[in-house]
């Protein structure tokens, strides 16, 4: 075979239009079944919630002509921009507006698959002698099994992972001193964040750091001044932050007002991860198996060792190994995942296996580079043709397996006809989060709520009110709804005396009124109105949406300016102009923060799972003092034993702990209920909300929990408790002073009660 055909193939692979045509064909072949099912409704539980966010956002714009800031349809109303998993704050929302949320989902998928392939090509290409390797690995990453699972589960926001390669591309270019790199980084990062990148966002930040360091390290080799490289990387970071503020600010507000603990030690063995990467996925009882969940049949990895010949290849292989290790989580003891979890943003990350995507990215890049290095060595020889043919075969087999996997998984989806819709006055219903998608189209909200964080939800919300707006005291007067939209309410209020008007939605600091004062009444949206007959307008306009939105607009203008070659170049002759330009979004946001008044958001009180307050000023009067101290700085001050069991056999125990210093991370609580047998109530988290280690010195915390004692039968039950080390050797923490309790084997006998 003549090597001429190889040169032609290399040139073809480098042609953007040819690549995009191939990527479009592959994306179309992959998405065909989901495109055909675009009109149907995904019944999977997560899809119900995530789809509803998008549907409600579309309804806000299409039906009411409003920005989708407040979503009244879920959990009694929540800040739509502040909900980390909603995906409407991205350019892809235009497709949802155009075609409807339902039909747009597969189209967005189609586009993102294409973008993912092109992004991966661009990651690998600058470091490879040729384009064949990068072209072959591009679809292998973009069609990875994670995306099949994501579509099945309705996690369309997870397709933001397809933009991770673009972050790498942008940072690499910025590191070379290219202004366009700054723009690509900021645009891709902001899109990931806006698209609900709960995992993709933090991972993008990690990838950007890795690529930034690599760029600095190789600046000299690329004949780029270190200062220039550093400058453009800093500009990329600044502009990314500014461009993402429209989402980061609201999400930050939300997460700082609702305390969430991610307990547990998620982990995997290497064989588990191997199965996730190498086996096709199966749909079993409505769920996708873990094996195949990250299906990545990259047979081209046989070429990866050749990548070690270059520093970049060694770096990619090292990062791939590090990512694989991170994906084991706590499975092999400590790992990069467990270290990352100590960081502020990363402590919210629960699932380590998502690092398998990062592993795939670096493994794919190293495979492409290895292949090209080998081809380079065989330049002009017949062996080169053989290698290319083998690579084409291996790549083709991998892509074929991935396309089949995607189609197989998505054909197993639980689909239903689209829900019936009825336009009528909105009101809250009890709803059902497992079938949430049925309520919004019926103009009904769902108080039944699930999210990955504790949504600030008022216990005063009701699903049986005659009217959604009413006076807490009916004697005060009457209210009539004049107009309603998600962000705006117009009410006709007749108040005989000043009083408190209730709206059957959650409170948020972003609600404003033109009369009276908006008040947070146990989490409910209420307005203290003066006496008299008047119209009252309520509108939702949070500062973070205004500030973040304006910052994003300015960031877009800056990006346009940086992208164009003319004016910015002239401007850049003046020192600091670039820095000023990319700082502009952040300055705008700071300006809005200073000028737009808004009450500070108050965190919702932290509660036990039974709703009782976790943090107390003093021990309740009815508790029994104990005063036991442990070898860790924890004191069991008092206890409230169960009086018995309730009608289903549940017994409620309250333990009151005082923290006297920094407690070790691995300390948990064991509780034994001994009767005719034993029921254990061991738990690692205090008040279902904290590790002991999170609680500052001096804190008094109530740990209230219940256990079911049906299996113990009737008779006396004694209660024993102590502390133990959940990790490590699992030993009990010694009791140094038993106080008023009996002590045996570092277990305190707290007392007994009768089960009748």
């Amino acid at each position: 075979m003549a090597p001429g055909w190889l040169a032609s193939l290399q040139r073809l692979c480098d042609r953007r239009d040819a690549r995009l045509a191939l990527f479009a064909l592959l994306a179309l072949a992959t998405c065909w079944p989901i495109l055909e099912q675009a009109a149907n409704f995904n019944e999977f539980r997560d899809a119900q919630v995530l789809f509803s966010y998008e549907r409600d956002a579309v309804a806000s714009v299409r039906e009411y002509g409003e920005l989708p800031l407040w979503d009244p349809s879920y959990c009694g109303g929540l800040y739509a921009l502040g909900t980390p998993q909603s995906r409407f704050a991205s350019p892809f929302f235009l497709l949802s507006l155009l075609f409807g949320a339902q039909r747009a989902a597969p189209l967005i998928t189609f586009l993102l698959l294409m973008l993912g392939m092109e992004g991966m090509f661009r990651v690998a290409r600058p470091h490879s002698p040729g384009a064949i390797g990068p072209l072959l690995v591009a679809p292998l990453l973009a069609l990875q099994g994670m995306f099949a699972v994501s579509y099945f589960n309705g996690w369309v926001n997870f397709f933001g992972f397809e933009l991770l390669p673009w972050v790498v591309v942008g940072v690499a270019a910025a590191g070379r001193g290219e202004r366009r790199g700054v723009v690509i980084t900021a645009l891709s990062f902001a899109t990931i964040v806006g698209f609900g990148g709960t995992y993709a966002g933090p991972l993008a930040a990690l990838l950007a750091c890795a690529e930034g360091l690599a760029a600095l390290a190789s600046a000299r080799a690329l004949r780029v001044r270190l200062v220039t490289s550093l400058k453009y990387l800093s500009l990329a970071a600044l502009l990314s932050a500014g461009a993402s503020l429209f989402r980061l600010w609201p999400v930050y507000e939300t997460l700082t007002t609702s305390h969430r603990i991610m307990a547990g030690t998620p982990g995997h063995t290497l064989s588990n991860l191997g199965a996730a990467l190498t086996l096709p996925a199966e749909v079993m009882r409505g769920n996708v198996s873990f094996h195949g969940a990250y299906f990545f049949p990259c047979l081209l990895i046989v070429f990866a060792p050749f990548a070690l010949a270059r520093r970049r290849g060694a770096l990619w292989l090292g990062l791939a190994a590090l990512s694989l290790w991170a994906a084991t989580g706590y499975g092999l003891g400590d790992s990069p995942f467990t270290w990352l979890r100590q960081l502020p943003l990363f402590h919210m990350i629960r699932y380590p296996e998502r690092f398998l995507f990062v592993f795939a990215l670096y493994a794919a890049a190293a495979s492409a580079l290895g292949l090209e290095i080998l081809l380079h060595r065989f330049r002009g020889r017949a062996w080169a043709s053989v290698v290319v043919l083998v690579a084409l075969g291996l790549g083709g087999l991998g892509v074929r397996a991935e396309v089949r996997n995607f189609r197989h998984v998505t054909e197993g989806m639980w689909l239903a006809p689209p829900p019936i819709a009825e336009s009528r006055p909105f009101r809250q219903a009890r709803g059902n989060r497992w079938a949430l998608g049925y309520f919004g189209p019926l103009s009904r909200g769902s108080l039944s709520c699930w999210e990955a964080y504790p949504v600030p939800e008022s216990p005063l919300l009701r699903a049986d009110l005659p009217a959604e707006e009413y006076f807490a005291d009916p004697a005060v007067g009457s209210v009539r709804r004049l107009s309603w939209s998600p962000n705006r309410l117009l009410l006709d209020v007749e108040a005989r005396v000043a009083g408190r008007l209730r709206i059957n939605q959650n409170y948020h600091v972003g609600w404003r009124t033109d009369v009276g004062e908006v008040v947070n009444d146990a989490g409910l949206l209420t307005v203290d109105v003066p006496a008299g007959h008047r119209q009252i307008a309520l509108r939702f306009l949070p500062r973070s949406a205004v500030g973040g939105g304006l910052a994003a607009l300015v960031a877009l203008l800056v990006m346009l300016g940086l992208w164009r070659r003319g004016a910015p170049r002239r401007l850049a002759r003046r020192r600091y102009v670039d820095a000023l330009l990319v700082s502009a979004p952040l300055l705008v946001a700071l300006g809005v923060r200073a000028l737009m008044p808004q009450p500070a958001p108050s965190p919702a009180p932290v509660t036990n799972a039974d709703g009782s307050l976790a943090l107390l000023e003093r021990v309740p009067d009815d508790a029994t003092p104990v005063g036991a101290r442990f070898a860790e700085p924890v004191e069991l001050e008092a206890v409230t034993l169960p009086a018995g069991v309730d009608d289903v056999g549940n017994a409620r125990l309250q333990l009151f702990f005082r923290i006297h210093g920094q407690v070790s991370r691995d300390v948990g609580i064991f509780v034994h209920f001994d009767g005719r047998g034993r029921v254990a109530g061991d738990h690692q988290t205090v008040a279902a909300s904290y590790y002991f280690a999170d609680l500052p010195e001096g804190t008094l915390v109530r740990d209230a929990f219940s256990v079911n004692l049906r299996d113990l039968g009737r008779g006396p039950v004694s209660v024993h408790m102590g502390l133990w080390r959940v990790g490590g050797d699992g030993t009990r923490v010694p009791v140094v002073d038993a106080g008023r309790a009996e002590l045996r084997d570092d277990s305190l006998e707290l007392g007994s009660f009768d089960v009748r």
Partner: protein
Amino acid sequence: MSVFRVLTLACVVAAVTVATGATPMPRVTGADAAAVSRAAREVADREPGWRRAARMQFPGDRWSQDDAFHNVEQNAVRMQAARAGVSVGELFDALDRELRAHAGGHLMQAVPCKPRPFYD
């Protein structure tokens, strides 16, 4: 325009055409209002038993109890809907009406969302 661009464009057009032209699965219809109300009542009447089971499953965990109840409820709604020949959405709507009309014995307040610390 190169043949490749035409091909890319053709793929995009095909994707949009297929997605916008896709026909939805047929929706179940035909049940009279009385049958729908009856089906909703049957679901509503079983609430106390399901709540009780949820309390045993998640002692002292209010949100998990409510969430477990709603899971059982939605399964029942789907089964009743299939049995009564009514769409799922229609039955949920009827259930809402039923609960409003006969709120006694039903939990009609919000149970604030508090996801469990452990899921692994």
